[in-house]
Structure formats: structure tokens, C-alpha cells
């Protein structure tokens, strides 16, 4: 009854002598929140980078919505419907919050150079629509009152939310979030949890990297655990928590959570 949205098949990634990912296979179903956890340096961010085309994998492939994803071509991956955020926030710092989200609409707008230079009807209409939608999106993530603030002047939590808004502006089917709760306080984290639930309800599948165990266990339908580049478990949260190999991986590493 559940449809597969993304299938990773035997993904491998090496950096010189270091194997950051080896033979990672996983399946994400349409409409779920899928958690990707693991100790520091396990390869979670690397998995995102390979998935979204920032890096080319050394082996394996991704099947997304029924066909293979291009590798090493980020803008084509986004066009196929996968958007991401970054572990260390990457906003357009000299642009306002609104403009950041408007930039996110680039992909789904098509005014030509000619249209822009002549300011034709299509262009003006599209520009108005982008502005309106971007504003709606800011409202959706709850930072519309900062629309005209430069993104670098936003608080940390608001920057994280702005990054999610910008990613959503590309109209993704799959939203990949890299530690969105990092550095957030308890209130902000609980608002984030609500936001992710809403996003899921609105039909976007979520792939979530997160260290906050409570958040992961509360939100995710299924969780995969990476350790030293290998997938050591994949199950519903309650089962993963009991898995001896997972407990070993976390307690064995210096960063127990």
C-alpha cells in the first residue's frame, strides 16, 4: 500500500583512503518522515551530498519516483523534486528573508530575458506571484514578520526556518533536512517539530538527519542508523532504540546521545 519514493542502491563514497559510505541501501516511502541517525562522522551529511548531487558517488545509484537520478548535477536533482538544507546554515546573507525564498522560486519560474527587459505581462504577473507565494511561505514557517530583514541578521532558529522555507519554494517531493534542530532551544525545537509534521501532512516526504533523539523518535516513521559509513539498522524508532548494535555504536563512540 505504500509507494516507494526514493531507493538508494549500494551507495559508496570514498575520500582518498577514507570510506565515508559503503554499500548503503535504503528505501524511503512516499509520505513518511524518515530518520537518518548515527554518531558524528558516520556519513550522514555525505549521504545527503551524494543524493543531492553535490558529490558524485563511487558506486551505486538512486532511483527517485521511478527513474534514476543524475549524479553530480545539483540543479537537475532539485528539478526532479529533492530539496535540502545544510548542517551549517547556508543562506544568501546579503538578501532579505523574502528574497531568499523568492530565489528559491527560480526553478519553478520561466520569465525569459526578453520578458524581463521588456517587462511583459507574463513577467510582471509571475513576479507578483513569486512575491506573494514567497510571503506565504514565510508565514508557513512562521517568520513573515522578518520578511524584509537581511537573512544574516535573523536569529539562529529563524535562519534554520528560512532555509526550510527556501527549500520548500522549489516545490520538492522530498525534503532533506540536515540537523535542523541543531542549536535550537526547547521552544524552537518544539515549533520545528510542529512544522515538520505540517510539512508531512501537506504531502512532502521528509528525510531527517538529527541528533536530538526525542525529536527523531517522536517524528519519524522509520529510522536508519549509519555507523562508519555502513547502515547497521533500519526499522521503526522503537525497535531501533532496542537494537544492540545501535546501542553499541552510540556508547562506543565518544558522543553518546
Amino acid at each position, binding site marked *: 500500500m505504500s509507494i516507494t519514493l526514493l531507493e538508494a542502491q549500494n551507495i559508496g563514497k570514498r575520500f582518498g583512503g577514507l570510506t565515508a559510505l559503503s554499500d548503503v541501501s535504503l528505501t524511503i516511502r512516499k509520505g513518511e518522515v524518515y530518520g537518518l541517525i548515527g554518531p558524528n562522522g558516520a556519513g550522514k551529511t555525505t549521504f545527503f551530498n551524494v543524493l*543531492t*548531487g*553535490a558529490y558524485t558517488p563511487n558506486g551505486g545509484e538512486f532511483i527517485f519516483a521511478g527513474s534514476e537520478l543524475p549524479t553530480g548535477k*545539483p*540543479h537537475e536533482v*532539485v*528539478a526532479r523534486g529533492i*530539496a*535540502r538544507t*545544510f548542517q551549517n546554515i*547556508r*543562506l*544568501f*546573507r*546579503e*538578501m*532579505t528573508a*523574502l*528574497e531568499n525564498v*523568492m*530565489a*528559491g*522560486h*527560480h*526553478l519553478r*519560474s520561466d*520569465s525569459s*530575458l526578453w520578458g*524581463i*527587459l521588456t*517587462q511583459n505581462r507574463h*513577467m510582471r504577473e*509571475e*513576479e*507578483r506571484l*513569486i*512575491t*506573494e507565494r*514567497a*510571503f506565504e511561505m514565510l508565514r508557513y514557517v512562521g517568520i*513573515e*514578520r522578518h*520578511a*524584509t530583514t537581511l537573512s544574516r541578521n535573523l536569529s539562529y532558529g529563524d535562519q534554520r526556518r528560512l532555509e526550510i522555507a*527556501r*527549500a520548500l*519554494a*522549489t516545490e520538492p517531493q522530498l525534503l532533506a533536512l540536515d540537523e535542523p534542530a541543531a542549536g535550537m532551544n526547547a521552544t524552537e525545537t518544539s515549533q520545528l517539530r510542529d512544522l515538520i509534521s505540517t510539512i508531512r501532512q501537506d504531502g512532502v516526504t521528509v528525510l531527517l538527519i538529527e541528533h536530538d533523539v526525542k525529536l527523531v523518535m517522536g517524528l519519524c516513521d522509520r529510522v536508519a542508523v549509519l555507523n562508519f559509513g555502513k547502515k547497521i539498522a533500519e526499522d521503526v524508532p522503537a525497535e531501533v532504540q532496542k537494537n544492540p548494535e545501535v546501542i553499541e555504536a552510540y556508547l562506543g563512540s565518544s558522543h553518546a546521545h
Partner: protein
Amino acid sequence: MYELAEAVPWLGSRNPRAARGVVLALMLIAPMIALSAGNTWVRILDFALLYVMLALGLNLVVGFAGLLDLGYIAFYAVGAYTWAFLASPHFGLHLPFWIVLPAGAGFAALAGLILGAPVLRLRGDYLAIVTLGFGEIVRIFMNNLNHPINITNGPQGVNMLDSLSLFGWDISRHIQITDDFKINSLVLFYYVFLLCVVGSVIVIRRLQLSRVGRAWAAIRDDELAAKAIGINVRNMKLLAFSMGATFGGVAGGLFGSFQGFVSPESFSLMESIAILTMVVFGGMGNLGGVILGAIALSLLPELLRSVALPVQQALFGHVILDPEVLRMLLLSLAMIFMMLLRPAGLLPAHARYSRPELAGAGRITE
């Protein structure tokens, strides 16, 4: 007009309409004021407007897209030489301006693509060095392509370029209105250049407030994030290089027609640096700032020259510091003072890439 008015200090923000009026009036009467000080000053104003166009074009590449280009003068050269080839006795061609000017712009845009393609992956210092090399290569070509076949006429350059003739009306001739009142051709050139500058500002402003302008700004701020939201970084950079070059090409063509003569020495590295200085000094990314920077840094050296030469003559009996040296000295001083006092330029960029009011102003402020 509105865009230029932003350059007026404080009046610009307090009373934009008055500021617009002031700018408009200043622009229109400037040549008359200059004329009272002599023809030289009108000429200087004309050149200042050419520099404004160049600075606006370079700002598009450096200020908007964040691509440091130290060879920008090459596009000016392409535009000027296009005029020289298509409208002078050199090849015996005398095509009208509405062919030659677009051709110059087109060739410059093409040169922009040729420069852009190999440097797509370079950033910062590396990009600066390669573009610098590109500028020099173009100049060296102009210098040496007189042999074995004479194309550019080498270091002597090309003479007797056709002037700008607008549908049969040659603006290099004075217009005699009454017996003792005539409109100087330098003044006519001024108004033609002014028209071109206003046109450039409108075009650039439209680009800035569009998906293209936002894509450029995104690439400038964070290339990786720009890719991650689906911007085709390669195409957008190429577009920036070629659009920026287009303005250089148009300015180059106008320069050729105005000067009536082109030679490689007008397109030295120092000119590229001077234009970059104008952009940075005025306020990278801010159109008003860039215009102000270009005007200030093309007029100040001339003022200095007109003062320094007689002073040196009087003091030492001969000229010790060459005007060109003085100009470079002034540009360097301008940069140093800017770094110390106004690191973001005369008018810091409060660059906008959107018109939030389109979403309904009421909702923005609620």
C-alpha cells in the same frame, strides 16, 4: 530617473521627488556649466558618462554576480574596434550606427562568453588573474594584428572613425541656431551619452529586480546553496559575463565615434583597474553609488590635473609628476580613504532584488 535619484545624499531618502528633480536638473544643465569653463570640461564630462556606462556594466559582473573581473576594458576595446572596422576608411566600410553599435555590443557579448566559459570554476583571486590575462591578451592582439595581414593597424591604431550620425544628422558638427548661438557638438555628444546611460540604468535595474538578478545575487552570496535551490550556475555566470560585456561594447563604440580614433593604449590594464576602483569606491552593487563613483573618479583627476600642472610649472619651472601618475595616485588614495572611512563605498549597497510591496504592503508591516 528614480534610480539615479537614490544617489542624492539625504534628500534622496527624505524627499525622493525633490531629489529626482535635482538629479534631473543637474544632469541636464551640467554641460552648460562645464561649457562656461571651456570646451575641455565638456569633453571631460562626456568621458565621465562613458566611464559611468563602463562602471555600470562592470558592476553587473562584480557587484551583482560576484565575479571579480580585472580585464573588463577588453570589452570596451572590442566595441571601439568594431566601430573602427565597420565605420572608417580603414576597411572602407561606413555602416550606420544602428548596425555598428549593436554589432559592437554583440561582439563584446561574444567575447564575454569566450572569457566566461573557461573561468566558470574559478573564484576570487584565481578568477581575477585569468581575467586580467584576458584583458592583456586582447590589447596585445590589437597591438600586433597588423602583420602578416593588417587588421588592427597595430600600435598606430585606426584613424578617422565615422562620427555618430543619427539618421543623416552628424552630431560632431555644431548646430547653428542663430548667428551667435550654436549648440556645441561636445554638448550634443553629452546628451546622446546621457540617453545611453539612462537606458543602461533602466535595463540593469530591470535585470536586478528579476529572477535573473536574484540568481546572480544568490551565486555571489553562496554558490553551493544556489545550486541546491536549482539555479544553473554555469548559465547564469555566462549570462552575467556576456550582459556585462555588452555595456562595455556599447560604451566602446560610443568612445570610438566620439574620439574619432582608437589605439591599443586606451585599453591598458590601468583602465580596467580604474573602472573597478570606481565601482568599489562608489559602492559595489548599488547603482547610484556606482554612478557617483564613476563621476567622482573621472572628474577629480581632471580637476587635479588642471590645478597641479600650473602649480608645478610655477614652482619648478617644469612638470615633475605626469598627469597620468597623478591620476593613479588619486585612485589609490581614494581606495585607501574608502577602506578607512567607508569600507562599503560612498553609497553602501542596500541592494534590492525584489519589490516586497507586490505582495501587499499592508501585510509586510503587520
